[in-house]
């Protein structure tokens, strides 16, 4: 009985945390009216969203996908191209881009998932580099110069606004939806299959799990979401070029957020994104004249974290929690 109460207590504590975070999201723009603060939070949420998406393939299904910049870029390019060349609103454009990205990811994943270990990671890198080179030299999509979206002022149908507030609302919704989706998935049968595949693919296969199918589902969801993030980004900056949306750095950053926060946990990417993006904004605001400093610090965090705490910040929080509990039980005794 006691243990049941503890379980309920713990679960509700977690839910209270989620509610508090949702309230924080709602209140934030009312407190911080400065565009800069809004912009920083948009970035935090965008990366939390992307990290959540990477988590589906990297954290839950345990596949080291390192080419997510390709899907981010496809999302950004497809919606922008549809808008510029055909006048299609970026909203359906986003959906088309996400479906194309998902389709491409399945097409590339289907042969790649036969590959074990590092080979899968390498294949995703090679694929992303190919997409980058293709877009870099393809004149129809603007080549290395990229595409500039026409500025139309405030327009919901054109997915562009003068102030940051609507962007903030949109990315908040994206993020909350992705969070709920990943939460639901992690509790579903599919989520358990992913965990089984992650911990031992051979055992999972022998138990009758169609590992390729579930890896493909994970890849599809992951790239679908990342591609939506790409469209959002292109609408935020109204400019797309290969060096901003298709580079290897981006693939690493997307994964980094989830890894530092805690792979395979729903809260991990959020934690990681807050930590990394706030830190980088702080460093850039303070030492803006030193190029690459924030990335140097990211890299150090990544290396140290991967060696000493491979489960990320979430594991550190767990450690702190158990330490407090130990102290408390000692005090009670």
């Amino acid at each position, binding site marked *: 009985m006691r243990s049941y109460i503890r379980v309920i207590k713990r679960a509700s504590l977690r839910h209270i945390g989620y509610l508090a975070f949702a309230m924080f999201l709602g209140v934030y723009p009312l407190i911080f009216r400065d565009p800069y603060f809004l912009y920083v939070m948009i970035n935090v949420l965008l990366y939390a969203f992307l990290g959540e998406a990477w988590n589906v393939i*990297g954290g839950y299904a*345990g596949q*080291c996908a*390192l080419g997510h910049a390709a899907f981010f870029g496809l999302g950004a390019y497809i919606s922008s191209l549809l808008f510029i060349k055909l006048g299609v609103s970026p909203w359906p454009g986003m959906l088309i881009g996400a479906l194309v990205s998902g389709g491409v990811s399945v097409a590339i994943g289907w*042969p*790649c998932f036969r*590959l074990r*270990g*590092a*080979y899968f*990671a*390498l*294949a995703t*890198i*090679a*694929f992303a*580099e*190919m997409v980058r*080179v*293709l877009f*870099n*030299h393809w004149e129809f999509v603007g080549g290395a110069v990229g595409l500039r979206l026409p500025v139309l002022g405030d327009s919901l149908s054109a997915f562009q606004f003068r102030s940051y507030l609507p962007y903030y609302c949109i990315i908040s919704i994206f993020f909350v939806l992705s969070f709920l989706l990943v939460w639901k998935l992690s509790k579903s049968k599919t989520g358990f299959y992913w965990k089984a595949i992650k911990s031992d693919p051979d055992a999972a296969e022998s138990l009758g799990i169609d590992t390729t199918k579930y890896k493909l589902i994970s890849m599809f969801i992951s790239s679908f979401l990342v591609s939506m993030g790409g469209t959002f980004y292109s609408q935020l900056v109204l400019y797309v070029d290969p060096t901003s949306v298709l580079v*290897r*750095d981006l693939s*690493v950053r997307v*994964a*980094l957020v989830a*890894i530092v926060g805690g*792979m395979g946990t729903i809260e991990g990417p959020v934690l990681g994104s807050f930590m990394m993006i706030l830190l980088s904004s702080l460093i850039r605001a303070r030492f803006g004249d*030193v*190029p*690459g*400093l924030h*990335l*140097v610090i*990211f*890299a*150090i965090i*990544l*290396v140290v974290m*991967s*060696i000493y705490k*491979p489960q990320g910040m979430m594991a550190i929080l767990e450690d702190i929690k158990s330490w407090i509990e130990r102290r408390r039980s000692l005090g009670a005794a």
Partner: protein
Amino acid sequence: MPPDTALILGVILSGLLMGGVYALVSGGLSLIWGVLKVVNMAHGSFLMLSMYLVYWIWRLTGLDPLLTIPITVALFFLLGICVQKGIIRHILEASLVNQIFVTFGMWMLMNNLALMLWKADFRTVSNPLVSGGLGIMGVRISFPKLVSFGFSILATCAIWLFLQRTKIGIAIRAVAQDRKAAWLMGIDVDRIYEVSFGLGLATVGLAGSLLANFFSVYPYAGDIFHIFALTIVTLGGFGSISGSFIAGLIIGLAEAVSAFINPALKYFVVFGIFLIILLLKPEGLREAL
């Protein structure tokens, strides 16, 4: 010889010469991969660091890049041992994602440190000892590339002989085959790892001295070599020095020929080969050799 044939021959030769340097860099990557079972994502960044080292030695003391070879090889061998002792040793048993991201972190660290310290400027060594080229019947061959090729071949052969003939070399191969069995036979596996990583980085040290002769030095200079090296190691089969040598020449040739047709094509072709090999024959050429 008609000028067209001479031109094409020149392209092919130049590709093969570059392929030699690729083979050298890949040999190091392949050795690390084969022995430690860790894909070093920072291999290209070490190459970039070596190029900067050579550049700064030249800049500050006037020593020619080719004469820095003993310095870079020795320093990078030591650096490799330090990196192995300080970082890689801790992740040998970690999950693949962690291993990859530790080395990715090192890549990010070095590239951005270079950017921080030396800005994104392109730097070149002017008036190196060997420069220019010669023409034989209209076929132009660049001297720095020829010399680099020579050194690369020598170094690759030396590593190959070292692995085949010396006691440590045989121990390295034993560890690559079966870590545990080698350990049971009394091989000091940790030391073998250090030597392997040291040797792996010594190859990029040497490659840095060679490339600084005719390549611009900038913070991302190593990245493209890294992708090429990954392609070559995959093509040649990881852990196989002879495999990466032949694959290096193939990739060098493919790059030169496709760049001759259309400069934009060369990366596409190389990455395409990479992807196709991964999908069709991930074990590479190793078994064929």
